[in-house]
């Protein structure tokens, strides 16, 4: 990146600096020179110079490998999307919250609406509300969705052609997509006109939270099925969120998060090829929900390294030629695990730094946590403040006026290279062990994350890691922040009443027949090469008013699984 003259001059100046540190700080002032490391274990120096970038290439935004951004112009042309994941209680309550968020500034690109809703765990796992497994959990952590009526409650006010619909549904995301398509058809929209996102992240959820799920082999097949169906039928659908967030919440380091996600991407791209797709047909519709923690510069470096590594892998390994396949799109969710329930207003400062890191890292979209989320559901005031953080950075600071403003920083560029190296180590280790899905099956990834979680707690307990308000700068009397809760038994009773009514108003012979067809398709789907045979049966089942739980039950009855491991 630098000429020999500049490097020589910089090295001369660095020698003077080193001399001063040694003579004045270490000898005279007895400074102990602690060795700092980043979260990923990368040693951090006290100062960086051109020497650290002597092997680096000059890069530009909008040019391969897109380290500095996907497009020539960044936020000057298009600000990031302010998206807030939300959902609780009944569909009506969630819809009201959506309206409030939109009023305060939540939006998609251009004039698009964005509806990003969280569902409860019975919906994630595909248990209908009247299933005994759902007891006590309906409406918690998200809204319950089991029928097309439930979707209608959330979306009836929206023009679906102009609405980005993103749910965070995990294991049952195929039945949900089938229901959404059937619902949209009923309102006169064809699948090709829809736009949104599926999580399609069955594996991640099972390594991080051990919820009842299909077996890893079935997870892999279901993910490939959704990819094949959507890229052939719903061109604008983002079929897969390669989610790093849940890994970060288990204390994966930034480099581990990136390495694990890329190992999964490689497995899925290979699967898509086996299913008869060309990489350029489906690679551009991958994106990631990334975790953003407190190690400020390393997080910025991670976002830059993420784009660079993606572009290189997809170009060099999979031969992608379409620039869209190489330009990786990132949605960030600020780290829930960085929030403290102690002195909760401090969380606004944490979220602000995280939003800043995202903007300096050039992300496309962001969910910002509310300061009260370590206590309960966010209040309107707290979630409005989370939106305001984005608006302050966007409109008051001038930060978005320059693309990749830290580009060329000796430190950040060097750290970007180092994060890339560390992440590649993780990725290739997983590959050498048989790949991502194999490392789910043999529990290697789960064990790695469990170790990380326990390590974090030990560091907090020993004081090696400072968390302000938790193990340092505590106060005697915590201020009470009112937590916002719902009355769950009432929600549960209402949701069960609705599904009973739904079941009473349909042709149950048709339901039974379409579920048999789903089972037959799943039984015939023995290898990923046959991908494409399941989704049509699910869509037909959804048209015949099968519920989310019934469709998921049909899949799992054939695939096996549910409780994966202890």
């Amino acid at each position: 990146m630098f000429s020999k003259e500049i490097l020589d001059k910089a090295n001369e100046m660095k020698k003077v600096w080193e001399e001063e540190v040694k003579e004045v700080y270490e000898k005279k002032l007895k400074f102990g020179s602690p060795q700092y490391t980043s979260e990923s274990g990368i040693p951090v120096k006290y100062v960086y110079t051109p020497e650290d970038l002597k092997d680096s290439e000059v890069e530009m935004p909008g040019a391969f490998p897109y380290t500095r951004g996907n497009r020539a112009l960044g936020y000057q042309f298009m600000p990031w999307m302010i998206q807030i994941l939300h959902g609780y209680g009944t569909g009506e309550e969630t819809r009201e919250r959506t309206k409030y968020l939109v009023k305060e500034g939540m939006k998609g690109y251009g004039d698009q609406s964005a509806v990003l809703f969280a569902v409860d765990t019975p919906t994630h796992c595909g248990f209908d509300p009247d299933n005994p497994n759902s007891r006590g959990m309906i409406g918690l952590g998200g809204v319950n969705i089991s029928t097309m009526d439930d979707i209608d409650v959330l979306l009836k006010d929206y023009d679906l052609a102009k609405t980005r619909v993103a749910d965070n549904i995990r294991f049952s995301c195929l039945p949900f997509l089938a229901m959404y398509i059937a619902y949209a058809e009923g309102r006169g929209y064809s699948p090709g006109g829809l736009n949104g996102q599926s999580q399609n992240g069955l594996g991640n959820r099972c390594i991080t939270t051990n919820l009842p799920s299909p077996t890893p082999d079935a997870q892999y097949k279901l993910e490939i099925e959704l990819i094949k169906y959507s890229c052939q039928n719903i061109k604008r659908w983002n079929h897969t969120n390669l989610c790093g967030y849940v890994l970060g919440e288990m204390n994966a380091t930034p480099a581990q998060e990136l390495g694990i996600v890329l190992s999964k991407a490689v497995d899925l791209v290979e699967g898509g090829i086996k299913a008869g797709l060309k990489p350029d047909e489906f690679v551009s519709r991958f994106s990631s929900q990334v975790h953003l923690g407190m190690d400020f510069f390393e997080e910025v470096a991670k976002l830059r390294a993420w784009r660079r590594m993606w572009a290189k892998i997809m170009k060099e390994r999979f031969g992608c030629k379409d620039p869209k396949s190489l330009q990786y799109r990132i949605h960030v969710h600020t780290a829930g695990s960085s929030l403290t329930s102690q002195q909760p207003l401090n969380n606004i400062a944490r979220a602000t730094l995280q939003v800043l890191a995202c903007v300096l890292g050039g992300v496309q979209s962001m969910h910002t946590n509310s300061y009260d989320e370590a206590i309960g559901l966010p209040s309107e005031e707290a979630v409005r403040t989370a939106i305001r953080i984005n608006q302050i950075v966007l409109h008051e600071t001038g930060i978005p006026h320059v693309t990749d403003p830290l580009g060329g920083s000796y430190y950040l560029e060097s750290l970007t290279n180092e994060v890339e190296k560390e992440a590649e180590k993780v990725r290739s280790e997983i590959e050498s062990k048989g790949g991502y899905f194999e490392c789910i099956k043999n529990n290697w990834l789960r064990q790695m994350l469990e170790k990380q979680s326990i390590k974090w707690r030990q560091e907090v307990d020993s004081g090696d890691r400072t968390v302000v308000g938790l193990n340092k700068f505590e106060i005697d009397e915590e201020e009470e922040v009112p937590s916002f809760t719902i009355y769950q038994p009432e929600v549960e009773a209402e949701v069960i009443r609705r599904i009973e009514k739904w079941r009473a108003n349909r042709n149950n012979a048709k339901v039974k027949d379409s579920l048999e067809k789903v089972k037959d398709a799943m039984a015939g789907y023995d290898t990923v090469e046959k991908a494409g045979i399941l989704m049509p049966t699910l869509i037909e089942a959804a048209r015949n008013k099968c519920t989310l739980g019934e469709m998921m039950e049909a899949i799992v009855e054939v695939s096996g699984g549910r409780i994966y491991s202890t």
Partner: protein
Amino acid sequence: MSKDEKKEKMKALMARFSLDGHDRGLLSVMSSFKDAGIEVVYTYFSDPKELAKVAEEEDADIVGITSSMGQHFYLASTLVEAFDERRLDAPLIMGGVIPTRDIPQLMDMGIRRVFGPGSAPSEAIDFVLGTRPK
């Protein structure tokens, strides 16, 4: 093994409700329990009656439940009932994301101690060791 020998080590049954996947806190607590010489059995359950059965079979000295999605009242009421049915006297303790203002009601319902966000594992260890039969 005689009953006395068996009781040299406290045995904690630690449980997660199967539809609440948040087990990061529980993993740390279990690791600290083991370091403190407490025997740990980890399980999950979807029916509170199942957990009472496991607690009886394991002859657990204490039963720890994690709840981070707001189901703590549901769990408290159904678990206390299931444990009473089997006449189990192992104290039930709870941790996770539980609002401070809900703690008195949980204790009224029969939960012996609640460790909310920010509790140190040492607090739970002291409590568990303190329940050792004299």
